[in-house]
């Protein structure tokens, strides 16, 4: 079963762009990256999946349940971490965690205590006195303490120091190993490349590509770097051409024989051909040439 399935999901905000005909499938148990810069439509997609906003067109299911008709059943099995968590001022961390558990009609005290210990979160502090990073930790405990089947995380590591980021992903990997699904919306590409098995790239509200991170990394493109080239090669399928001193580098997605023939024609001192990393793939999709 798919943990998330959207079909032609569209949200219009009048003049402002939302998302357009987004069709996406995330298998249950997957560790899925949802990549795009600010304003691409990541948060809109998440808010639709959580029933905070209604779709203009299309449909979506989360854990086999319709996002419009079965919102409560979905939310009972989802842990959501927003990019900027806002809590009730004046509440202590312990009160907030208890309130969250009560809203879920679950006793989460044991799990909450374990999570707070691992994340070094002081539950006696008032939430409005916490730093951004500590507020994020509160959000993490709220999202994890009821051990949901699906984690929807929107820019989860913003505000966390590197040690806490490590501890957080360790927790997520444990939950993933237990069979939970992780849907990670991020523009921090190294964390998507490191932890996610599959990923989708969204641009201006439209899904550009969805595949395994490994395939996205290769995607038929190679990073070609030439040193001492007599002239710039002229090839179809060249992208992201950059010069640096006597070297030039570009992404190439065409025929390998044509590349070798062109390199032989222009003459060069040295060549390296490597797999591009996810950042390069992302940049490829986000440059005009990539369209």
């Amino acid at each position, binding site marked *: 079963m798919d943990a998330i399935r959207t079909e032609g999901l569209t949200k219009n905000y009048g003049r402002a762009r939302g998302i357009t005909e987004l069709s996406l499938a995330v298998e249950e148990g997957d560790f899925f990256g949802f990549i795009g810069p600010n304003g691409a439509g990541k948060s809109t997609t998440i808010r639709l999946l959580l029933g905070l906003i209604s779709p203009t067109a299309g449909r979506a299911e989360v854990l086999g349940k319709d996002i419009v008709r079965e919102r409560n059943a979905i939310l009972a099995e989802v842990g959501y971490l927003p990019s900027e968590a806002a809590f*009730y001022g004046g509440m202590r961390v312990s009160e907030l965690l208890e309130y969250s558990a009560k809203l*879920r009609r679950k006793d989460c005290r044991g799990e909450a205590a374990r999570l707070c210990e691992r994340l070094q979160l002081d539950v006696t502090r008032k939430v409005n006195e916490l730093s951004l990073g500590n507020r994020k930790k509160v959000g993490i405990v709220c999202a994890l303490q009821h051990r949901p089947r699906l984690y929807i995380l929107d820019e989860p590591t913003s505000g966390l120091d590197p040690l806490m980021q490590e501890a957080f992903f360790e927790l997520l990997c444990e939950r993933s190993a237990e069979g939970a699904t992780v849907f990670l919306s991020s523009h921090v590409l190294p964390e998507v490349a490191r932890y996610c098995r599959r990923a989708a790239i969204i641009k201006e509200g439209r899904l550009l590509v969805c595949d395994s991170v490994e395939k996205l990394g290769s995607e038929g493109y190679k990073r070609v770097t030439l040193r001492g080239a007599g002239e710039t090669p002229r090839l179809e399928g060249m992208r992201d051409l950059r010069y640096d001193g006597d070297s030039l580098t570009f992404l190439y997605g065409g025929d390998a024989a044509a590349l070798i023939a062109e390199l032989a024609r222009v003459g060069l001192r040295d060549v390296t051909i490597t797999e591009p990393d996810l950042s390069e793939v992302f940049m490829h999709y986000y440059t005009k040439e990539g369209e």
Partner: protein
Amino acid sequence: MPVFFRELKRNKLLVIIWSAASAGMLAVSLLIYPLMVSQLQSLAEMGDTFSAMGLSAQSFLDYTGYYASEISSVIGIGGAIFAALIGVNALSREEKEHTAEFLLTHPVSRARVVLEKLLAVLAACVVLNVASAALGAASSAVIGEKADSGAIALTFLAHFIMHVEVASICFLLGSFLSRGAIAAGLGTAFGAYVLYIVANVTEKTRFLKYVTPFGYAEGNYIAANGGIHGGYLAVGLAITVACIVAAFVIYQKKDIKN
């Protein structure tokens, strides 16, 4: 009922301060009654100078009339402002303070959220009126005056219903407004009071009492007639129910702002 209890906690300070102030002011105005009896006689002789505010000359001549008029003066407009603030904040504050996302990503239906918040608003109105009634009764005992308990109870009941109506209108406003909701709520309370004053100016404007909730909560009328004006009350109850139903419908469908 976690949302209900959370709302009670959130409103605690406002409810305590406003209830204490309203009840305290009512108590003071009743405690000075023995000192004012002679002056009230001369006020009564001035005729209907204060009729626009719902006070008649007759209301100054006996303790029940005075008590009922003081309820209207003290917890009428003051209570309406309180009800407006509590009502308009109930739903709008979640979006304004960006906590709606936290609340509504838990498995609680929006209808349940609206219901529990509405109950918390009703509870706040109950506390204000019960505290005022209790301190009013204690003040009457202190000065040794006895009012018609049925008329006074009805006056408090009418004010409670009026507060609930104002709160319901503002609750509806809060279901679709986040910014400017408080101004809209206070505007509603003051607007209703201005309508009431205009309604008392001439016979031609009397029909406005069907529109303003202050129309049926006129202590002076209740004390004199031994009952609440049925027509005004029926319209008020209809407006209350319509606003509550509309708030449920709107909040179910609304897009929650980030």
